[in-house]
């Protein structure tokens, strides 16, 4: 991934309406629908499909960013 964490974080923040997620960087606060929205957008932007296991092994958005970097590598 050529993008920085700041850019990735901004992408996810733009997807998640704050009224649904108090802290978008904590994945445990996402609803199942929000997870699908993020997974869909990651696929569209980075051509990477995030599995349920991969997503739920992450605590923070930063963890997810690292997963994506490793998947692409």
């Amino acid at each position, binding site marked *: 991934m050529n993008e920085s964490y700041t850019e990735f974080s901004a992408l996810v923040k733009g997807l998640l*309406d704050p009224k649904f997620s108090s802290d978008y960087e904590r994945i445990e606060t996402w*609803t199942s629908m929000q997870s*699908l929205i993020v997974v869909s957008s990651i696929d*569209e932007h980075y051509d990477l499909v995030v599995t349920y296991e991969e997503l739920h092994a992450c605590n923070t958005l930063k963890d997810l960013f690292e997963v994506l970097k490793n998947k692409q590598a």
Partner: protein
Amino acid sequence: MALFSISDIRIVGVSAALPKQVVSNRDLKGISEQDLELLIDTTGIENRRIAEKETCASDLCFAAAEKLLNELHWKRDEIDVLIFVTQTPDFQVPGNSMLLQEKLGLPTTCLALDVNQGCAGYVYGLSVLSAMMSSSGLKKGLLLVGDTITKIIDGSDNSTAPIFSDAGTATALEFDKNAKALYYNLQTNGAKHDAIIVKDGGARNQSAGRGSLAMRGHDIFAFGLKEVASNIHALLEYSKIDPHGIDYFVLHQANMLLNESIRKKLGVDKEKVPNTLTKYGNTSCATIPVTMVSEINKAMRKNDLNLVMSGFGVGLSWGSVIVNLNGIICPELIEL
């Protein structure tokens, strides 16, 4: 690799029947207003059709078939083969195809066969029937595809209850040496069989009683993102048909977010990808013919069209087909 073509078979008619009863997702209980709004936005599903207690998939398919056969002016004793695709048969034994052979007044010389398939069922059923007719020279065949899937849904399960609807459809096929080839690409991944499953009530877990459908939504979503567009791309390449020459891409109506992602991967305009999720929800194996009848009825009756149809889900099974339709019989959607 199940990438193949079938010659000499033409689709000559399609019909669909839905239950009259409309249930709105806006009336769902046990979910906050905000989450409900997000659910409707993401899935695209606002209203669903639920069959009455006494109505089964066989009844909906029967209504669709009766209407279609009458408009086709087919003589019942000319029908050589009937295939019924469902996961919600009337009985454990015998299959729905045998019941419908009698109910539709088809001759005892008719071959009747059931296929247990889910969301990819329309494409799989079409492949079985067209291959059978092409290789044998059987002249007239009927494909009935339908489910009353809401009968195996737990109404309190918010991962499945807001998604599914009931429907029955009928498709008529004819042997015709001048028909354009049908192209198929069919795939399976049984390793993920438990992503959508009714675990109880079959021979494996009989004592557990009647089961309900359980679905791991994220797994199905990831599967759809990964597999469907690439399956269609491979099919188009194999067929050597110019993708610009495809008039419509009729996708299984899974959920709006997934179908939109697939559409973007295919690089086609929204106008070429009809949608019935909002008004009818996910009618299981019947979504493709329901969407055809509901959304492109007039075009199918009047025009020469090339369609890609793609089904994906339970199994996991997925598959696509390219068909040419040239002025088919397509009655208006039936409500029962």
